[in-house]
């Protein structure tokens, strides 16, 4: 068994005429939380979408648990027990919060069949999910939608959780809950890959970090090493943590 649950090697992605990813190498260690950092337009979201099969890699390999998934379609990739929260959250606005979560519970045919203990845990982390349980998700605020999106991704245990900017637009108190949620998931053995712009968020949670620029990973290593090296931060990200 490889130490890495997910490995990208030399991944190129084209979107129409545009060449977005120029040979991404990324390794996500099992049971750890990996942060993908980088300025806007560096290719972070495209990397996540390519992993999920929403964009097709034109070159390179994507291995999940030792198996090449670069040619699989999106439903098949998700069925390998991977949860994904896109940058736009992917909330079904006309469905209630309950229905949004029920969709992600693949084994449950009705809300009654969902894992009650796990729901209770989610309600504790994100009270808005319970408060607005029977309300259309489209009526919620941006922060509340973000909570529903993450809650939906963790409604059943997954081997790999991929989240695009979980802290975007969240109030500080909710960011704290979000950090707590990821910390607890990590302790339960879930491997997590997060794209983040909020560096404090990244520093508090990340075990390993990869920094992207111009469609490539330009730095990879332990989060702590980057957190302690102000010069490296400046050279990679243009600012310090």
């Amino acid at each position, binding site marked *: 068994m490889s130490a890495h649950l997910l490995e990208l090697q030399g991944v190129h992605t084209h979107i129409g005429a545009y060449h977005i990813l120029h040979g991404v190498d990324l390794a996500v260690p099992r049971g750890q939380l990996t942060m993908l950092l980088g300025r806007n337009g560096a290719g972070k979201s495209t990397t996540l979408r390519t992993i*999920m099969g*929403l964009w097709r890699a034109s070159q390179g390999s994507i291995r999940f648990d030792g198996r090449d998934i670069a040619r699989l*379609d*999106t*439903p098949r990739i*998700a*069925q390998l027990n991977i949860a*994904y929260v*896109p940058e736009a959250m*992917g909330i*079904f*606005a*006309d*469905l209630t919060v309950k*229905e949004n979560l*029920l*969709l*992600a519970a*693949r084994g449950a*045919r*009705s809300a009654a069949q969902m894992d009650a*203990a*796990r729901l*209770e*845990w989610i*309600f*504790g*982390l994100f*009270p808005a999910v*319970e*408060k607005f*349980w*029977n*309300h*259309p998700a*489209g*009526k919620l605020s941006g922060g509340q939608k973000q909570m529903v999106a993450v809650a939906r991704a963790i409604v059943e245990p997954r081997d790999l959780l991929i989240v695009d900017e979980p802290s975007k637009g969240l109030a500080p108190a909710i960011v704290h809950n979000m950090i707590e949620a990821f910390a*607890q998931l990590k*302790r*339960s053995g879930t491997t997590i890959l997060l794209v983040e712009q909020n560096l404090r968020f990244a520093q508090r949670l990340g075990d390993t970090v990869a920094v992207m620029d111009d469609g490539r990973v330009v730095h990879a290593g332990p989060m702590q090493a980057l957190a302690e090296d102000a010069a490296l931060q400046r050279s990679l990200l243009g600012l310090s943590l």
Partner: protein
Amino acid sequence: MNYKQKVPPAPAQSAQAAMNLREIDWPPLALVPVLALAALPLVGSGSTWLTLTVAGLAMGMIVFIIASGLTLVFGLMDVLNFGHGVFIALGAFVATSVLGAMGDYTQSASLWRNLLAVLPAMAVAMLVAGAIGLAFERFIVRPVYGQHLKQILITMGGMIIGEELIKVVWGPQQIPLPLPAGMQGAWFIGDAAVEKYRVVAVLVGLAVFALLAWTLSRTKVGLLIRAGVQDREMVESLGYRVRRLFVGVFAAGSALAGLGGVMWGLYQQSVVPQMGAQVNVLIFIVIIIGGLGSTGGALIGALLVGLVANYTGFLLPKAALFSNIALMVAVLLWRPQGVYPVTSR
């Protein structure tokens, strides 16, 4: 894992129900009764109004049965199927054969014996239309996913071929499809004549709507369809194959069009191979009024179209030809994406 976090108390059920009621978008629901009531003083006579209203509701329900599948087909996979009409004609022609072979039952004055013929005719029409729908999806629609212009051209072409094949099997001429004896005639409420078949049509339409509403709101498949209409990519990211779901919806939509064809044929009491093309315009108006992808909107659109067609046919016969277009323009001026726009489309 720590499951022992404090759980906030759930809101009381009644309070939540009240909140849900407040969140319902009421104005479109009021359109049908408001239109019917507004027509009453214009028509003048209460009995004529009742006759026209029941006729309008019956026509609306049949059109809804036909349009419900089409709106989901568009909502789920963005497919513009201009060939939907062929399943209407197919259903109606299959019914002429089935009912023709069951003369003993259709000529009986007993409504129950009539139903023993009509129900199998509907079932066979739905099976045939559903099966042909599967082939239509596989060979005509699938090669042009994501290409609207090609979809319009090839599905219209498919309908023309379908019409010609109907002529090969049943001949090019108009075929009578008389109502079974027990469904002919009218019930009289005071001075108002309410045709029996129109009541049957309303009841069948309500049953189809109830079944559809139950499937969409209470089952996981229905939940997936509603979610897929809003954001197909996200449903796939959750591990479901939307394309497989779409094939099922396409076949079910075709079967419903077949059922609608049987009912439309009985309503007109005759069938022609071109009947699908004739109804096609009407059902596109209905799904545009309703909001593409919305079944609740399609029901409201269909009832409005049925009522407006009957009221203007009586009040302003010369305006009847464009009344449905005028209705669509009026609704779109009010809500440019239809009465119930599907969010995130």
